[in-house]
C-alpha cells in the first residue's frame, strides 16, 4: 500500500495522468479546473513533457488531436463553457477514431452560468457531446481517489477502444482535498499502427481523417464504431451498489450527489426505511442492466442530481415503467443537502 498524500481532486487527476504515461497537456484557464493546468505547468517541464497554454479551448483540443494522431497519450481539461468550445474537436476525435483523455470539472450553466459545482453537462457528455453519431466513455468520480484512478483507467480505455474518455467531475470533486494513494503503473502499451508519426519510408502513408464523402462509406464507419460501442457496453460498465440487498427504494446518484445521498440513506436506514444506492461510475455506458435488475424488486426510484434532471431520463429508460422515478435536485451551482434527500426518501417510503 503506497503512502497517502493529501491532494485536491484536480491535482490528483494531473499526477495520475503523468503516472499513466501522459507527457502532453494542452489547456486554457477556466474555473474550477485550473489547478490541473497549473500542476502540469509545474511538472511537465521537469519530466521532459509538454505543457502548453493554448490560445483557446478550441486550439487546445486540436493540439490534443495532433498529438493523439502521432500515437502518444495526451489530455486536456476544462469546465463546462470550455467543453462546449471543445465540442468540435471531440467530434473530430470520434470521427478519426483517436484516443484522448478529456476532463470536465463541471460548473453551473447554461451560458457563462456560474463557477459552483454542477452536473448539468450530463446530456452533453453522455449523448455525444457534439455533432454526429458518436459516444465518449464517460467516467464519474466520487472521491479524490477516484479522480486519480479513473484518470488512469480512462487512458487505458481510450487507447483500447480508440476514442475519447471523459472524466465528468463536478466542481466539488475538483476542489476538495482528500488523502489519495497514487500507486499506479503505466498501463499496457497498445500498438498504434495507424499513427501518423512518419512513414520512415518503410510503410505506405497513414491518414488520420474524419471525412467520408461517400455516404455508404460513412455509414459503414459509423456502423463499425457502434459495434465497438456494443463491446464497451458489454465489458466496461462500472457502478457501485450500496445497501441494495433488501432495498425497497433505490437512489441513483453519481459524483458529489452520491456522497450526499449516502449520508441521507444512512439516516433513513436508522429510521427503518429500506433504501439503497446505485452509483453509476460509468455514465456512458450507463449501468442500465443493474438498474433494470433493481426495478424487478424496488418499489420506487429517486434520481439525485445537480441539474434540472438529466440522468433521470436514463434511469427511466432502464426502469422501463416498472416503478415510479422521481427527481431530487438542486441546480445552478447548488448542492442538495442530506436533509433534502432524506425528505425525498421519507416521502417515497410513505
Amino acid at each position, binding site marked *: 500500500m503506497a503512502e497517502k498524500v493529501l491532494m485536491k481532486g484536480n491535482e490528483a487527476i494531473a499526477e495520475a495522468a503523468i503516472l499513466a504515461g501522459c507527457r*502532453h497537456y494542452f489547456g486554457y484557464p477556466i474555473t474550477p479546473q485550473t489547478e490541473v493546468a497549473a500542476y502540469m505547468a509545474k511538472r511537465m517541464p521537469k519530466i521532459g513533457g509538454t505543457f502548453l497554454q493554448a490560445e483557446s479551448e*478550441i486550439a487546445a483540443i*486540436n493540439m*490534443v488531436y495532433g498529438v493523439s494522431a502521432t500515437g502518444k497519450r495526451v489530455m486536456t481539461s476544462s469546465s463546462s463553457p470550455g467543453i462546449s468550445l471543445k465540442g468540435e474537436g471531440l467530434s473530430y476525435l470520434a470521427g478519426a477514431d483517436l484516443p484522448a483523455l478529456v476532463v470536465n470539472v463541471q460548473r453551473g450553466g447554461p451560458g457563462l452560468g456560474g463557477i459552483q459545482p454542477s452536473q448539468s453537462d450530463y446530456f452533453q457528455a453522455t449523448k455525444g457531446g457534439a455533432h454526429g453519431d458518436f459516444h465518449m466513455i464517460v467516467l464519474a468520480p466520487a472521491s479524490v481517489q477516484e479522480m486519480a484512478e479513473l484518470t488512469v483507467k480512462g487512458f487505458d480505455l481510450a487507447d483500447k477502444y480508440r476514442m475519447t474518455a471523459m472524466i465528468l467531475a463536478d466542481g466539488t470533486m475538483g476542489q476538495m482535498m482528500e488523502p489519495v494513494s497514487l500507486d499506479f503503473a503505466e498501463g499496457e502499451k497498445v500498438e498504434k499502427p495507424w499513427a501518423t*508519426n512518419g*512513414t520512415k519510408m*518503410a510503410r505506405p502513408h497513414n491518414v488520420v*481523417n474524419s471525412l467520408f464523402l461517400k455516404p455508404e462509406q460513412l455509414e459503414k464507419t459509423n456502423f463499425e464504431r457502434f459495434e465497438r460501442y456494443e463491446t464497451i457496453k458489454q465489458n466496461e460498465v462500472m457502478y457501485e451498489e450500496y445497501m441494495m440487498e433488501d432495498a425497497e427504494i433505490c437512489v441513483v446518484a453519481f459524483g458529489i450527489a452520491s456522497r450526499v445521498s449516502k449520508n441521507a440513506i444512512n439516516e433513513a436506514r436508522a429510521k427503518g426505511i429500506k433504501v439503497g444506492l446505485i452509483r453509476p461510475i460509468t455514465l456512458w455506458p450507463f449501468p442500465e442492466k443493474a438498474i433494470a435488475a433493481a426495478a424487478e424488486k424496488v418499489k420506487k426510484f429517486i434520481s439525485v442530481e445537480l441539474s434540472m434532471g438529466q440522468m433521470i431520463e436514463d434511469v427511466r429508460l432502464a426502469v422501463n415503467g416498472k416503478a415510479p422515478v422521481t427527481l431530487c435536485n438542486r441546480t445552478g451551482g447548488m448542492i442538495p443537502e442530506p436533509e433534502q434527500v432524506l425528505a425525498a426518501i421519507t416521502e417515497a417510503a410513505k
Partner: protein
Amino acid sequence: MAVVFDKPHALADVPLHYCPGCTHGIVHRLVAEVIDELGIEGRTIGVAPVGCSVMAYDYFNCDMIEAAHGRAPAVATGVKRSDPENIVFTYQGDGDLASIGMAETVHSAARNENITIIFINNAIYGMTGGQMAPTSLPGQVTQTSPYGRDTSLCGFPIKVCEMLSQLDGPEYLERVAVNNVKNVKNAKKAIKKAFENQVNGKGFSLVEVISSCPTNWGMTPKKALEWIDEKMIPYYPLGVYKDRSAEK
C-alpha cells in the same frame, strides 16, 4: 534515355480533383519536390485543411492528417510537440487560415512554432462554390458579395503577411505567386526555405501563395492568371515580409 522530368516521390500517383486551370496542382508539386530534395518524406507529417485542398491527404505520400476548418496550425503544434524531429507542414486556404482559423494562425506565429505553413490565397471560398473570402478584393463579385465586396459593409481584405510581420515570433514570411514561370520558380525557392528553416530548427515559416480560381472567378484559366497580375498582386505585393535569419 535520360529522364529529365519526373513526378516527385512525395506526390502520390493519383488523379487530383482540382478544376482545370487551378493552381493547387502546381503548389502541391512544389511542396513534394522540396520534400524530395530535403530527403524528409519519412519524417514529414502534413496537415490538410477544410476547403478545396481538403483531400490533400490523398495527394502526398508522407503521413497526413485531416484537420477541422482552420485548426491545422493547432493540430500541427500537437504533432510537432509530440516529437520535434517530425517535419510538419499545413496546407491551408484563405478562408481556413485567415477567417475561421485566424486565432490558430496568429498564435502559432506568435509562439514561433517550428512548423511550415503553405497558405493558398485565391481570394475566394472555392469548395463551397465561390463565396467572399477574408482576402476577397474590394469590389470583387462573389456569391455572397453579388454587388461587389462593399468595404463599408464587410470591411477590408486581410493582408496576412503584413499583419503577421508585426509579431516578434515568426521566423520567415514571404508572399509569392504561381501565375507565370518566373513566379513559380520564386515560389519554389520560398517553399524550400520554409521547410529548411524547420529542419534547421529556426521556427515559424509561412509562404503565402497568390493563386487562381478560374471556376469561381468566372474566368478562363489564362484570364485568371492575368487577373493575378492585374488585380491581386497590386493589392498583395510579392516579397519577403520577415526573415529573421537575414536580419542577423
